[in-house]
């Protein structure tokens, strides 16, 4: 029996404009009741990985608020363990605030938790993945380092800036380069790795000797260029990259489709999140809801089409919400028409008007704004 520690790596999370100005992507609301980090933590939990470290780059306040005691993701609340890993010294020095320095600053996990394998996974690639299968293959290959990738067919419009891998005939990674959006069919790196404990330790030492700015992806790219063995694991099925506000909107609304939803939410793969004990959603006499997710605590009296209404949102009679995401505790007043808009938490929109964005350029209403 082997021991695994999962590291949820938030260092490479893209920014989604103002939506992530005051919070990291990890604790950004998703589908009205989740935070994006829930999916990575549930992947760990469902893969029987109960030892978890969260590599926080910034915005620890928002992460801690969401996680609480993190008991909802643990199979055994005594044996289960979560560590907030944070590099306090480097937080104001972005070039140095990278994942390897964070792990260095928290290197006690190598000794205290002493896993045989680390599974390192980000939150901006949304996917259901059973890490046990990756680890099995990693062991079978006698690998020291395995990189998880996904073949995708929309590289011109998605995964821009992500890493693309090239594989040799034996399935070893022979090269890594940036996706510049010139080709649709690419094998995109999901920045998800299985690494032996000693190998990660070694990589940290080598990275420091090469460049102080070298993070995990950099040193792995460097290893590939040096012709060292990096094994690969092909992830098949649903994967989306959250790298812009328009993708956030598109990937969210796409899940209204049952066929797509079934790929992310599988019966044997529950997604855990913290409960807020809000009462069920209430639909009034004048509610007109079509093709939408409505979270608990919401009160809907207006029209909602192809949208996501989060916890405790009020959509008043005569309001119209289309193709939009309305975050927690927002009020959408009478006479407002929203189309392709992302409204952040606690906003209070009462003045009747049309607020219209475009699918590839959604409008954003700031947290707590009164309009």
């Amino acid at each position, binding site marked *: 029996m082997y021991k695994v520690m999962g590291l949820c790596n938030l260092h490479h999370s893209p920014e989604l404009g103002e939506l992530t100005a005051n919070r990291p992507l990890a604790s950004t609301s998703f*589908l*009205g*009741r989740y935070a994006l980090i829930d999916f990575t933590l549930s992947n760990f939990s469902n893969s029987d990985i109960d030892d978890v470290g969260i590599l926080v780059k910034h915005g620890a306040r928002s992460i801690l608020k969401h996680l609480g005691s993190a008991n*909802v993701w643990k199979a055994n609340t005594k044996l289960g363990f979560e560590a907030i890993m944070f590099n306090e010294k480097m937080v104001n020095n972005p070039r140095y605030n990278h994942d390897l320095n964070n792990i260095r600053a928290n290197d006690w996990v190598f000794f205290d938790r002493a896993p045989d394998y680390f599974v390192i996974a980000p939150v901006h690639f949304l996917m259901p993945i059973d890490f046990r299968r990756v680890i099995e293959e990693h062991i079978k290959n006698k690998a020291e380092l395995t990189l998880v990738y996904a073949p995708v067919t929309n590289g011109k419009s998605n995964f821009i800036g992500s890493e693309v891998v090239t594989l040799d005939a034996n399935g070893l990674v022979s090269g890594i380069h940036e996706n510049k959006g010139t080709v649709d069919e690419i094998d995109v790196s999901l920045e998800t790795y299985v690494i032996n404990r000693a190998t990660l330790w070694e990589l940290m030492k080598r990275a420091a000797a090469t460049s102080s700015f070298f993070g995990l992806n950099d040193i792995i790219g460097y290893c590939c260029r040096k012709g060292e063995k990096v094994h690969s694991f092909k992830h098949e099925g649903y994967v989306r990259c959250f790298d812009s506000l328009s993708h956030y909107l598109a990937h969210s609304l796409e899940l*209204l489709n*049952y066929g797509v*939803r079934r790929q992310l*939410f599988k019966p044997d793969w*529950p*997604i*855990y*999140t913290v*409960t807020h*004990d*809000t*009462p*069920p*959603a*209430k*639909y*009034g*006499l*004048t*509610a*007109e*809801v*079509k*093709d*939408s*997710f*409505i*979270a*608990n605590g919401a009160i809907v009296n207006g029209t909602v089409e192809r949208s*996501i209404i989060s916890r405790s949102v009020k959509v008043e009679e005569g309001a119209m919400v289309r193709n939009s995401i309305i975050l927690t505790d927002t009020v959408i007043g009478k006479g407002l028409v929203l189309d392709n808009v992302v409204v952040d938490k606690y906003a209070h929109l009462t003045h009747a008007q049309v607020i219209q964005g475009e699918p590839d350029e959604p409008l954003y209403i700031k947290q707590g704004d009164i309009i």
Partner: protein
Amino acid sequence: MPKEMVAMLLAGGKGTRLEDLTKKIAKPAVSFGGKYRIIDFPLSNCANSRIDTVGVLTQYESVFLNTYVGNGEKWGLNGVRSLTASLPPRQTEEGAAWYRGTADAIFQNLDFLDELDPEYVLILSGDHVYKMDYRDMLEAHKKANAELTIAVLSVTMSEASRFGIMNVNPDMTVYEFEEKPKKPKSTLASMGIYIFNYKTLRSALVADAKDETSEHDFGKNIIPTLLKKGQKLLAYQFNGYWKDVGTIDSLWQANMDMLDHLTDADVNSFRLGPKTFSEDTHSVPQYVGRSSCVRDSIVNQGAIILGEVHHCVIFNEVLIEEGAVVKNAVIMPGAMIGKNAVVDRAIVAGGTSIEENRQVNVNGVKIVLVTK
């Protein structure tokens, strides 16, 4: 550290009048209001009243209820200094016996209470839907220097003969208690919520246990005996929403009350103020489809609604297929309403499948319970 007040929650009853809904679970475990079980209400009230020690007396189908109550975590009753204990009947040195009545259930657990050594004991029932801060009641109990305080609710004269009625003096002290009187003298109905001075409760229960003619019931035996002995009993009037959900009709009605726009019981009693806690089902968000219509209803997470829903309470993981029309109904967890089926004025039990095109209680006057 001795506790000022501990709660003892009577949750052992079957609830026979709920028919097949309580075939495999006890009444306190019956679903209510889209996401709750009835027992969530008194337990949330305890939590919100900052009571940290609760004994739950279970008997009928106790395994599920004991598991559901667990360590009290769902209601936050598992913190430091907290204790949540399920107390089904047990074998002791003296032998083994079922709980013979509400008073006997507490009597058989006097050792549990002695250990905690509380000043006051709050007796609750797991059969009622309401939100109440028991601290206010305790305050009144202390102020009046009463031995026993009974929460009462003003009902109509016609309803009064269905309840235990308290006849009170102007200072709210009780001079007479009448169980289901034919000609009620007052409209103050007992809600089955009692605060006892523990010493008084203890000696009353010990005496009652020796009485072979007693039914060992709080309403029928303990309260009348204390009155006869001239002890000071206080009625504490509660003004919020309260419902005994003991029959299919009243369970349906209480669910429909959550949709009532005149009283706004749902908003005023449950959406505002302290939260009612419950189990989290890890459900995906509820989805309402392209050709569906949902109005005048409350719907829990995990539900998928592709048909029409009017004036309904819809629980988690319910599926309402395209073309189905569901009106004035309570659809419990995991039930499925097939394509073009019609359901009216019904409670559909959890996990039930209503097949395509089936008509349930269309134009019916009575409320029906559907279990298959």
